[in-house]
C-alpha cells in the first residue's frame, strides 16, 4: 500500500472536504482538484439522473494504476481518486480527483492526466435517464 495514494469506489456520496483533508500536506503548496458533476443536459437533451455501475475489483486496480503512473510521471506528492456508484441526481458528484505537489504545475498536469485516463480505462459505465428512455453512454449500437 502506497500511503500517498487514496482510491475509493463507493455507493456513498462523495465528500469534497474529506478529500481535501486527506490531500493537504505541509510540504505541498499547490492542490489541484477536479470535481465531476452530473449535468442536466447532454446533447441538448434533458437528463433526469445517471446510474453508474462498475466492475469493482478491476476498477480499483485501474484507478490504482493511474495513481501510480501519476506519481511516477509528475513531481507530485499525493493523489486521490474517488468515484461514486449507483444512482446520482443532477448536481451530484460522480468523481473527485485531488493532487498535491510542492509546485502547482505538476498538480494541474497530474490531475488532468488522471481524469483523462480514468475516462479511458477505468471499467465504470454510465447510464443516462431521460424523460423518454435511457441510454448507456458511449454505447449506441
Amino acid at each position, binding site marked *: 500500500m502506497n500511503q500517498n495514494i487514496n482510491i475509493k469506489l463507493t455507493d456513498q456520496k462523495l465528500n469534497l472536504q474529506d478529500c481535501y483533508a486527506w490531500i493537504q500536506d505541509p510540504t505541498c503548496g499547490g492542490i489541484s482538484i477536479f470535481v*465531476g458533476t452530473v449535468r442536466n443536459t447532454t446533447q441538448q437533451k434533458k437528463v433526469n439522473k445517471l446510474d453508474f455501475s462498475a466492475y469493482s475489483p478491476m476498477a480499483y486496480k485501474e484507478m490504482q494504476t493511474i495513481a501510480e503512473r501519476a506519481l511516477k510521471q509528475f513531481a507530485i506528492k499525493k493523489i486521490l481518486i474517488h468515484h461514486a456508484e449507483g444512482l446520482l441526481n443532477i448536481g451530484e458528484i460522480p468523481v473527485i480527483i485531488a493532487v498535491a505537489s510542492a509546485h502547482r504545475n505538476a498538480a494541474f498536469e497530474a490531475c488532468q492526466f488522471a481524469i483523462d485516463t*480514468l475516462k479511458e480505462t477505468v471499467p465504470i*459505465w454510465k447510464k443516462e435517464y431521460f424523460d423518454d428512455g435511457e441510454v448507456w453512454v458511449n454505447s449506441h*449500437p
Partner: protein
Amino acid sequence: MTNEEQIKYSHMKIKLLFFGITQDLVGNHTVDLNIDNTISVAELKSELFERYPNLNKFPNFAMAVNEHYANEDTLVNDKDIVAVIPPVSGG
C-alpha cells in the same frame, strides 16, 4: 466429439462477466462457460458472437482476463474470469 474430448471439456470452466450494454444484450451479468481447451481471447470472442448473436449489435468491446485488459492473443485458462468491457464512461 470423442469421449476423451468430452471429459477434457467438462474439466475447464471460466466465468464470463458482462457489463453495460453487453449485459443488456446478453441478458445476463454472469455466465459460467465450459471450454474444451485453453483458448485465445480472439477465439473466445468468436464463441461469444455465436452464443449471443445480439452481441453483434455492439461488437466493439474490450475483454479483461482476471481483471486486466487482454489483447486478442491473451490465453484464457481454466477458472479464469473473463469480462466483456464495452466503452467505459466513468467520471
